[in-house]
């Protein structure tokens, strides 16, 4: 349901507008902050984890950028790189699901909306899953569910912590109920990881909504979020329709969730890796995994 907003937002605001701006400013050499309009060298922006130096706005980043920010250089070993989606319902809306998959695969170079693997971060072993919003809004279908489940199972077997970076509109409608069931499947794998007394940390980024919020995003031993990230179960438009009134200021932001007790800490992206290392160390993670 929350995909609603996502599509609405996307239509209203964004990519087209931003793309033209970028072109005006020199074919992507320069970048203008959508929040404070500060114009900076794109290279400088990327060097600052795509966080605006003027206002601290966290620009959306893709999975390779995210992995580079968390994993020690050269340490990321991807898992299940051959898993790709099928079209189990032969689904077709205005376009066929098969076409949507193909387009997303071509534009992102990914097979589906999550990249998983084992890496080291600040020298410590970590099972890392990163959702990629570019691939059909990070929506969760069978592949996302299967890859995350395998990642968690591997982490349980190797006795290492799990970090999942969430960025998703929720369950992927084109795979129908199979998508919904991934919520349960992943939660089941997390239960086993938990029984083994291992640490699971989700990092919630813009946006984390719907079925992802109602499963692994909210199941962390500690729940971390990026500043101002949109986090919620139901979509804003759905809620507005139900209530027929304006929503409170800052509704469904990371700060709002923290203030209501559902997010432990909001961590600036530029400080995330250091914070992660501290947390892992506090919880007894060491460079060598006991056999």
């Amino acid at each position: 349901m929350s995909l609603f907003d996502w599509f609405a937002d996307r239509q209203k605001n964004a990519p087209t507008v931003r793309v033209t701006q970028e072109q005006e400013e020199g074919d992507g050499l320069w970048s203008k902050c959508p929040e404070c309009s500060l114009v900076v060298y794109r290279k400088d922006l990327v060097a600052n984890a795509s966080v605006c130096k003027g206002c601290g706005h966290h620009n959306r980043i893709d999975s390779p950028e995210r992995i580079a920010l968390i994993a020690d250089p050269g340490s990321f070993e991807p898992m299940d790189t051959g898993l790709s989606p099928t079209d189990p319902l032969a689904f077709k809306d205005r376009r066929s699901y098969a076409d949507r998959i193909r387009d997303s695969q071509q534009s992102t170079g990914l097979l589906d909306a999550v990249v998983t693997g084992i890496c080291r971060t600040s020298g410590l072993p970590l099972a890392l899953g990163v959702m990629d919003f570019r691939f059909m809004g990070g929506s969760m279908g069978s592949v996302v569910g299967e890859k995350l489940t395998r990642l968690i199972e591997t982490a349980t077997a190797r006795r290492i912590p799990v970090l999942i970076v969430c960025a998703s509109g929720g369950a992927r409608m084109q795979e129908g109920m199979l998508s919904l069931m991934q919520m349960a499947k992943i939660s089941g794998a997390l239960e086993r990881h938990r029984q083994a007394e291992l640490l699971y940390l989700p990092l919630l980024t813009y946006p984390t909504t719907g079925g992802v919020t109602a499963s692994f995003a909210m199941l962390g031993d500690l729940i971390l979020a990026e500043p101002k990230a949109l986090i919620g179960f139901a979509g804003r438009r759905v809620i507005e329709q139900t209530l027929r009134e304006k929503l409170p200021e800052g509704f469904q932001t990371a700060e709002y969730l923290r203030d209501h007790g559902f997010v432990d800490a909001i961590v600036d992206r530029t400080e995330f890796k250091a914070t992660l290392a501290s947390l892992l160390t506090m919880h007894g993670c060491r460079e060598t995994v006991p056999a």
Partner: protein
Amino acid sequence: MARRALLEFEKPLVELEEQIEQIRQLARDSEVDVSQQLLQLETLATRRRKDIFDALTPSQKIQVARHPQRPSTLDYIQVITDEWLELHGDRRGSDDRALVGGVGRIGEQGVVLLGHQKGRDTKENVARNFGMASPGGYRKAMRLMEHADRFRLPILSFIDTPGAYAGVLAEEQGQGEAIAVNLREMFRLRVPILATVIGEGGSGGALGIGVADRLLMFEHSVYTVASPEACASILWRDAGKASTAAEALKITGPDLLKLGIVDLVLPEPSGGNHSAPLQAAETLKSALLEQLSELQGLSESQLIEQRYAKFRRMGRVLDSESPIASPSS
């Protein structure tokens, strides 16, 4: 007896039923013997009803699933149990009337029962929030399931919701967290869990009490990842395409059986469960008891292992590296 509400596709039956009613009236007023004629018309009406209900489209099934007189969780609980006591509250400050539950007894077997509860009319529906549970409802369900685990009582869960409640308060109280915790914890419970979609199963709000060893579903019930209305306005950008979306989403029992999501589809009386609620309840009761006795033959660890394995298989992926290892494809 009050005439039941007729659905759009039942209209061909209206004329017939009016005729039957007229003849009955006539028979009461005069003393003409019309039994032969009545029997004929009634047989015809039965046949027509069966033809109509055998050929329901997914969007028509949604109408049956949402029928105001379709038996609800409390209706079934009352018929299925020999006695039961409704229990209230999540022990965190709320009691959600959209999600009810309690302890009961079927023969010698103690059970915990819980489910979404809709109302029959507007007033009841307002009190029940149209069967849309709040975080407190999911936490109440979890508390009852913990109780079941502690006293080794099997859990019977009844799904009948358009979805979890979407509201400011629900978000503030952590709707996502409440459902998520249930999904995780239900994998841990050491007692058999049987869930039945008695009406509509709306997305995460349904799954929040639906991680079960066996998932049963009535013939005209539906279970959806997103409501066809929402799906139509997002993917088709046209809310009017809801019936097309209902078709595409594969939401009926037979479809979900094929996809490996549902374990058993229960037949409904011709005309749907609302036309013969007691018969529906008997069907449900015997199916539940049969499934339960199968599950009670398993040890606790087997039960937990099989539940995990069942969900582990769900999904369809293509594995270019090891096609054989890919689950259920």
